[in-house]
């Protein structure tokens, strides 16, 4: 295991996570309730409490490049469980956003799926399931994803053939403004006490 140099702690990272998530990270006392309750821990490279600890230590790189933040299903179990009332799910989501912005994504497939989904919403105003699946398969090269399900879905009329358009371009406007604005900025001058 790598030795962590405590002098390399990045206080701006802690502050950014705190501001974007609205959570006070120092309140975590490492009881592990989040890890105990998390349904996806078995698939994580870092258990949730370690993610929290690494944020406390200001380890930007280790946190933003871990897979746990991408495999989190945002099921909120940890947030409900935390005895210190930290919304851990929000912290995980925040790290995922920051990971994408920093280009440290470890689970590319998930990011691609997210992009496909949002692309579909941007184009149509609503999510169009077959279209986004097609886009996802195309971009990841995972051509056999769930094709086993297609026949049964078609038989049960669970796949629409045409996207529904809605929103009269308002949704596209939201995306346009989002792209123009770029990642959200925090006031990192104020030191976190």
């Amino acid at each position: 295991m790598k030795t962590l140099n405590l002098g390399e702690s990045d206080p701006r990272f802690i502050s950014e996570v705190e501001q974007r998530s609205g959570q006070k990270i120092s309140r975590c006392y490492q009881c592990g309730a989040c890890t105990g309750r998390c349904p996806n821990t078995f698939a994580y490279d870092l258990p949730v409490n370690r993610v929290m600890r690494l944020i406390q230590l200001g380890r930007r790189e280790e946190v933003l490049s871990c897979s746990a933040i991408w495999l989190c299903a945002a099921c909120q179990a940890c947030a409900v469980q935390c005895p210190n009332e930290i919304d851990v799910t929000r912290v995980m989501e925040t790290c995922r956003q920051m990971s994408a912005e920093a280009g440290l994504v470890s689970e590319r497939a998930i990011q691609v799926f997210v992009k496909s989904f949002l692309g579909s919403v941007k184009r149509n105003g609503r999510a169009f399931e077959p279209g986004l699946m097609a886009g996802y398969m195309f971009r990841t090269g995972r051509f056999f994803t769930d094709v086993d399900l297609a026949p049964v879905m078609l038989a049960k009329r669970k796949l629409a053939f045409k996207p529904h358009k809605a929103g009269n371009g308002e949704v596209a406007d939201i995306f346009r403004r989002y792209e123009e604005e770029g990642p959200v900025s925090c006031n990192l001058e104020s030191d976190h006490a």
Partner: protein
Amino acid sequence: MRIGVFVCHCGSNIAATVDPAAVAMAADSMPEVAYATDLMYACAEPGQKAIVEAIGEYRLTGVVVASCSPRMHEPTFRKTVERAGLNPYLFEMANIREHVSWIGKDKEANTRKATDLVRMAVEKLRRDAPLHSRRFPVTKRVLVIGGGIAGIQAALDCAEGGLDVVLVEKEATIGGKMAKLDKTFPTVDCSSCILGPKMVDVAQHPRITLHALSEVEELSGFVGNFKAKIRKKAPYVDWNLCTGCGACLAKCPSKKATDRFNEETGLTTAITIPFPQAIPKKAHINPEFCRHFMTGKCGVCAKICPAKAIRFEQEDEIVVEEVGAVIAATGYDLADWSGYDYLGGGRFPDVITGLQYERLLSASGPTGGHVVRPSDGREPKTVVFIQCVASRDPSKGRPSCSGFCCMYTAKQAVLTRDHCPDSKVHVFYMDVRAPGKMYDEFIRRAVDEYGVDYIRGRVSQIFRKGERYVVRGADTLAGAQVEVEADLVVLAVGAQAAHGAEKLAERLHISYDDQGFFMEGHPKLRPMETNTAGVFLAGACQGPKDIPSSVAQGSGAAAKALCLFAKGVLENDPQIANVRPGRCVACGKCVKTCPFGALNIVEARGRRTAEVVETVCKGCGICTATCPQGAIQLQHSTDNQILAEVNALCRF
């Protein structure tokens, strides 16, 4: 008036963020200030000496000390100025530590603030009058509320010290929580073997009057002269006749009564004696379950009783006891954990509290000391202990550490291995807190000799799997989620003040914190006192405590009561209300609002006027705020003094 101002550095406590010399210099030019200086430690011997000398040298007639909170050292400095020949009430304090130096870092602003506070103190002092205490006799009797180990110790020590003691216990027997314990840590000696003799001592001591099944309903009066109204609940048995033979218990047909002594791990009869060593060993009827009370048709106990002691028609009795001091020793109860849904919140029969587990371990308990599952009576193969339930949990409004759970969990884990040598025992903990004598060694023994498995992490879920329970949590040291199938789960539920503690506190006029624990006079220096003179605290009613600490505090509270009575007479606090008859129009508004009945309208020299009963007045000042003419003034906190303080701040 010639005023001396002494500004304390308190080492660097004040001087680090306030400039005491600048404050003293500013004070030098305040009205009637004849001398102003700064001192390193005003409260220490050299500081006090400097004050005494300055009083003589500069012929000072009043003193201001700017230092810590008056709640800390006002009595100290009053004595100092008294030593120098001044009336102790010609003294004021400016709190420039707790209210200034410790809460702000801006030295300039702090110095300005400290100067303002000194100016206020000077202005107040200029309007102080010398006050003199009155002496009054005391009733040398002590009321001890609560018959747990702390109350027992306090009662015995007071009685041994020559005081008459009235011991009031809510339950039908004394002994409290300790009587429910099987063994005690870290010695693993039998709880009832060491408690039992003390309980017998209480019963036999000629100076102790015991009221069991009783509660204090009202406390009136003041230190030295309290009157306590005590409700003795009807046991429906004439305790003068009852011999505790237990014949009625054997024959009572209602066998499904709640067994409070056994923490509801079993059932008992409607007429019952809590446990074989109960003091007093007298039967009482629980009317909620008694067939006679429910249907009117029964009376087996009355027929069978050889002493003819059953009294279905008995009613509660009110007795009034006159005492000079009160020791509250009402102990604790486990916190309500029904909100812990993820632990079942009480839905699972085999997820029980530590106190319930004690009853299962105890040879006098419902299972005769056999560790079995409440659901099916089978011996558990795997027992999981969970610490910090309703402790250290801000999300449930329970942020504090209950202190003794780490140790009793270790003890129970060890006993489990003793009782069921084939069992596997896991303990989920967050931190092990074992700072007492031989405590940490005991934890080590649990791990090394008894093979108890300690897992560092919180449990986040318990769910049923068939007849067993899946306990899921984290092992943060392994960095993993862990799961174990358990037969029995024991929760170390945190402590809160005993049920009804808040209500009692209101009756005793003492404060309590958000967990219901009674507030001590000072967190470090007055742990046995309250802010109400003559009311002392012992044991877990003041905060969670283990047995040795409870015993120590019980003895300490007894010592406080003995000190109080050592003088024979007491002096009152002269900071009480005073009527200027010339200004009073006898409108009676003060009489209406006084909470203590300390005011009367009397006829004096042909005029009606209000009058203060000096020993009854407690100096709250409600009357002063009520009187439109300002005819009644709270001495040492007069309208003019408060106005002067306001004016001192709003000069320009």
